[in-house]
């Protein structure tokens, strides 16, 4: 090895390696307080943190089928409903943490509506999804404590790693966050869904039917972690009524689940688990009042736009309006 290469291998290269690692560490330290804004959930957390109090009497939780609707449509007068819907990836645990953060600035609501697919109650975040949508979003001591208590050792402690080994997370996303405008209000759609929309009726791609069939074949379960999360939602808001709205399902999936008594079973399980923790719990199954044919879906879980999404928005608006009276009539 000639002198130049000897110097390169023994001095220049190792020193450069260390210098770059240190530089990245310093940079990461400077950016440590910049909140992430990688996805809608991050932005929702930032909005709760940066925005003022809303004090809505109703909080709406739920997964992406409802979140999707709320992005485009206003389902209640301004300020009446706090939209804390997110996607399935953070699970019901994510909804619990969002509610907890909401309550840091707002007075407890009188009503909590969970409008979601029934599969939401059987889902526990894990792996990469849990890291991106749960542990890296909700990392306050109390939240980590909850995760540790109910989800085990994998959430044991804050992962300590040099910034150089996670440049994407500790530098990349933070710089992107700085380039974006900070959201300071919850997402609310503009359009008010009053009229019955024109519904899409053209056939769907065969791959969508395959994914709908696959969905129907997966059994519905109630996860233990979800049970804990739901109990804690009630404990956080002891004076609120809790309403579960079973979101639209493709007709074939719904009929299969109904035939097998799965929806009834999960409803009874939830009622049984929550009877000592919640003031009042009730269920509204939107599918009992409105059929959502398979062609209403743009994939196994979401409705086609704009027609079927608007239809769900219209029904949800009616439910929210009438929820404390006779909501079954509201759906006629």
């Amino acid at each position: 090895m000639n002198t130049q290469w000897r110097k390169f291998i023994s001095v220049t290269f190792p020193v450069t390696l260390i210098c770059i690692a240190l530089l990245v560490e310093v940079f990461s330290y400077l950016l440590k307080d910049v909140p992430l804004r990688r996805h809608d959930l991050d932005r929702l957390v930032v909005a709760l943190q940066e925005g003022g109090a809303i004090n809505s009497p109703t909080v709406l939780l739920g997964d992406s089928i409802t979140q999707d609707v709320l992005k485009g449509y206003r389902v209640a007068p301004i300020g009446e409903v706090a939209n804390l819907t997110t996607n399935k990836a953070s699970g019901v645990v994510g909804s619990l943490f969002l509610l907890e953060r909401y309550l840091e600035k707002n007075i407890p609501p009188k009503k909590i509506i969970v409008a979601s697919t029934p599969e939401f109650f059987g889902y526990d975040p894990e792996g990469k999804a849990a890291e991106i949508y749960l542990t890296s979003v909700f990392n306050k001591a109390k939240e980590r404590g909850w995760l540790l208590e109910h989800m085990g050792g994998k959430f044991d402690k804050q992962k300590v790693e040099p910034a150089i080994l996670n440049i994407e997370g500790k530098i990349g996303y933070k710089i992107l966050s700085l380039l974006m405008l900070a959201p300071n209000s919850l997402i609310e759609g503009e359009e008010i869904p009053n009229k019955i929309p024109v519904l899409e009726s053209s056939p769907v791609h065969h791959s969508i039917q395959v994914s709908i069939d696959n969905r129907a074949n997966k059994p519905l379960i109630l996860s233990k972690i979800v049970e804990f999360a739901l109990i804690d939602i009630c404990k956080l808001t002891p004076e609120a009524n809790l309403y579960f709205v079973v979101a639209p399902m493709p007709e074939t999936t719904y009929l299969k689940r109904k035939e097998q008594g799965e929806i009834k079973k999960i409803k009874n399980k939830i009622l049984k688990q929550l009877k000592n923790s919640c003031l009042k719990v009730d269920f509204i199954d939107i599918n009992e009042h409105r059929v959502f044919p398979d062609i209403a879906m743009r994939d196994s879980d979401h409705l086609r736009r704009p027609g079927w999404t608007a239809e769900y928005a219209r029904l949800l608006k009616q439910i929210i309006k009438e929820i404390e009276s006779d909501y079954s009539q509201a759906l006629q």
Partner: protein
Amino acid sequence: MLFNDPIFLFLFLPIVVLLFHLIRGTVGGEASMILIVVASIFFYGWWNPPYLMLLLGSVLFNYAITYHLLKKPSKLLLTFGVLANMAVLGYFKYRNFFMENIGLLLGESWQFEEILIPLAISFFTFQQVALLVDAQDGHIKRVKFLDFATFVIFFPQLIAGPIVLYREMGKQLQLLRKDRGAGLSLFGLGVVTFILGLFKKVALADGIAPFADSVFSVADQLTMLEAWGGVVAYTLQLYFDFSGYSDMAVGLGMMFGLLLPINFNLPYRATSMINFWKRWHITMTRFFMMYVYSPISLSIIRKSILNDWSKQQQFLLGVIVPITITFLISGLWHGAAWTFVAFGVVNAIGLVVNHLWKELRLPKPNIFIGWLLTMLTIMVSFVYFRADSIANANLIILTMMDPASLIFPNWLSYYADYLGIPWHTLVVFSSGTYTVRMAGWIVVLTLLSLSLKNKPLHLDEIRPTVGLAISLSVMLWLTLGWLDEPSTFIYFQF
């Protein structure tokens, strides 16, 4: 043990490199070569210790044959040696495939217990077969057992090549044994080449792999744009995966003072099929040219001269037949499946058309057209290479060509309505973010595949500057950051 496995990177490699140079500097070259052999045995045995006996048995058997062929060339002994090697390879790799297909021909459905194919069996078998032929033909004069063993089981090239020839390694091994040769002089370049290869594999190939996988796993649910996206993504993944591995092998070789041949030379810049196969998996192509294509072609040409065949007959039998046979074998070499046979057939067709074009002296196409046709042929062949079955591969290719399957994703519905193209929520391009990321990977990797030169072809251009140190450091840190789950190399299965 994989080259991108932390155990290899932080334990095995530093220890072996350190011991090698320490022993070389104190005890001598021969002792350091013994260390390489021992380390290589450990490296291979880490995967599946029982199959170590197969590797060692193969080395001893082939050395014995080589020894006798060098003493007295014998066609009978050579035939025996080659057939014995092929029998072992055939048993482990092709027995089930052939028996099941014979069963199908007879209308029977024979099911056989799956055989675990010994790692690298195609590589070490072919390397030794080449050595036997070279010994018979007099290209090799003398082989010491230590040189022979190092040549076959040298861990940087044992698992997935490059397929080296003894005639190019023998001299280097002799020098190494005699404590001369490159020694430490290549070490720095070896580190550079290895890090570049590691970066190609971990950051680039593994980065685009999920996008390719997502398409090939739902072959029956694709639309035209998704099929194209997946095929292009896999074409790039395969290149960066295998060329990354090859760079790492070459880099490791240099760390031990041995210069292994390169396997790639900017293959996606090729403007014809003939040109492509001079740039892609160069050592495999060389092997098949030397030991399969040329013998067949030469024997046919000899016959054609004796029998006074027409020019057309000469071309048909002297070019088309050898190409077809060579690429059928090359396809099967990659794996015992009809998909690999189809991969060979597509490439054979491409090459035959290319030769025919030249033979008929048709006008040379524009460089871009040539490049496009070459890449299309290659991509079609890679669909067979990657797909689970011929049916799935056909489905993907048909989707790529079927205008009726041009459906836009729902998040582009505005533009789709404007253009009058149907839209739906798609299985792969389900979200804009995912699709844009995939497109980004494709663009970046395409540019890199066309511009990033393959080392050490241009070693003389590398200078140990601060700029190089910064580039290497960034590449190494990015790689280490993504190293949490080492994935296997595509060519390890062969």
